[in-house]
């Protein structure tokens, strides 16, 4: 696989794992081109083996959240950020509420917080197993 094919696989994997969606081809193309132009680099940040996560179908969202919380700026967060920017600009993910909905909002926020806590714990477990070489 050449580098661009790897990026295509990576982006599809991020979109499906994080947002359960299949991006349109032009957005995939934007991800590949932006990556090739050096929008995402590992300069001054912790490098994370994203290929390993994709190849082993691991929960990329959990690992990213754990790393962002406890490691700080890292390559995986940068890749996810690129994906989220492209999905927001291409209106693939909805970030603006059109109608007021107070109770729905509280339900969604509670659900989001519970998911986040579970993801953080899951991410921590995966990083632990990886470090102990159990996942390798």
């Amino acid at each position, binding site marked *: 696989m050449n580098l661009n094919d790897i990026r295509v696989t990576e982006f599809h994997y991020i979109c499906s794992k994080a*947002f359960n969606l299949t991006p349109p081809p032009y957005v995939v193309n934007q991800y590949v081109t932006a990556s090739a*132009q050096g929008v995402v680099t590992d300069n001054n*940040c912790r490098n994370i083996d994203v290929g390993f996560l994709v190849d082993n179908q691991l929960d990329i969202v959990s690992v990213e959240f754990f790393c962002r919380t406890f490691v700080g700026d890292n390559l995986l967060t*940068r890749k996810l*950020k690129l994906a989220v920017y492209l999905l927001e600009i291409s209106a693939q993910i909805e970030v603006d509420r059109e*109608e007021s909905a107070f109770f*729905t909002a509280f339900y969604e926020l509670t659900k989001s917080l519970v998911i*986040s806590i579970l993801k953080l714990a899951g991410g921590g477990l995966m990083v632990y197993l990886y470090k102990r070489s159990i996942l390798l």
Partner: protein
Amino acid sequence: MKLYDVIIVGAGPAGAAAALGLQGSKVLMLDVGHQPDPLAKSYDENYYKYKSASNKGDELLLGRNYESLHNISQPYLMPKLKAPFQRYVTQARSELGKVISPDFNTQLSYAKGGLANAWGAQLLRYDDDDLKEFPIEYADLEPHYEELEQEIGLSGANDDLGVIYGSSKNLQAPLEKGKLAKKILSRYKRKKKSFHKKGFRIGEPRLGVISESHKGRRPADYNNLEFFKPNVEANYTPIFTIDRLIAEGELEYLCGRYVENISDDDICVVHARNLCLGIDEQYLAKKVIICAGAVNSAKLVLKSRCDYETRLPIMDNSLSLIPFVEVSSIGSALEKKSYYNQLCLAYECEDDKQRVIGTFYALTGVLATDLMFDLPVAASVMPLIAKNIFPAMLVLHLWYETLPSSQNWLSLMADNQLQINYKQITNKPIEKKAISILRGLGLISHSKLIQYPEAGSSFHYAGTLPMKKEPTSPYQTWVDGRLNGSNNIFVADGSIFPVLPAKNLSLTIMANALRVARGIGAKV
């Protein structure tokens, strides 16, 4: 060779105001003068329309070269400077504006209109309290404030903040606010007295953004494109004044000229590089006014004197950002027709004996991804959180008074690059007090959420060539703006500030430039 009465170096707020004060004289303005891509003008619908339509807004929101994604791996640029059509504001060839600084975020502008192309347009008068370290008084600036407010077109109100901002006869109605800001303001009005006791005042922002037609400019259209579209007509930039003076034959403007040094004799010789032709040119004038911005003006003066040793002071307002949530607004629909600058505050902190100025910004008109990764949640739920929380959020920017310090300096290196050394000061006790007081208005935050942008991020650079009643150094200026040790070179931008009050400095830079120019105009 043509001899001008005055040459103005730079076309930012100070340059425009100086040109305004020199009508009737033979004036040349030299500027690098980058301009926005004309394609930007074609975007005239609401920001959210571009955002919701698949790839309709890609060029505007993402950029041909993915400019909007700059902050992923590069040093932070504020949203207005990283937007694709706004990149011209700080775009420069590396040889023009290279600054070596590990701890100071220096953004220099070579655009026509300068950094004002990306300003928040808060235009406030200094009062005598702000000017106490200046060798001039409010009365010296007052007529110039008046004239500039009429030139610019100002929206706002003589409300509770009038005590701090000064009352003005030239105000148009305030801009439309969102529901959240209206809620906060009405709560404040009910509890006003207790807030006053704590030194707190909240009111309408005073902005160079018009709510009614003014001098042929259309009023604010609330399209929320301020972060992405350059030169939105309702938002004043110095370009409006410069273009009007050019059209009226009051000003000759040459762009593509980078002024390298100025020799001062009976006649001033301005040496500029023609960036298009790659040749050196000379221009003659009786007087020169340097208005290139505090950093570039200092560089020009040091370079003209071949001084590679002197360290000049530099200041920038310390800035902190505090996100607030108003719980009852969680889950509201996003406001798509209001201006992002919602409310302002002034806090006279008795214990710390300082005045703090703040602005509440709504999160409209920016990409949610710019902020989402600051939330302590998993990426998969970020859109849900953003959708529900952002309409209930206001981000308070707090600016602090800054004094010169021996730790904060700039100097010119032998290769003509600038070096800046800066130590940022934080003010956590004041922020904690502000958070606690604002809880009384239903605004919730926590001191752990406070963000401190890198030093230099206010872009309120000042104080490199301070104005003194009796200058003692060749890098200080006289009250009339004249550079000490020079007969015909004047400085009229933020360089001349001896201290930097918390209030936004832009209108005072312009008022002082107008004052200096009027003095020179009377002589030539």
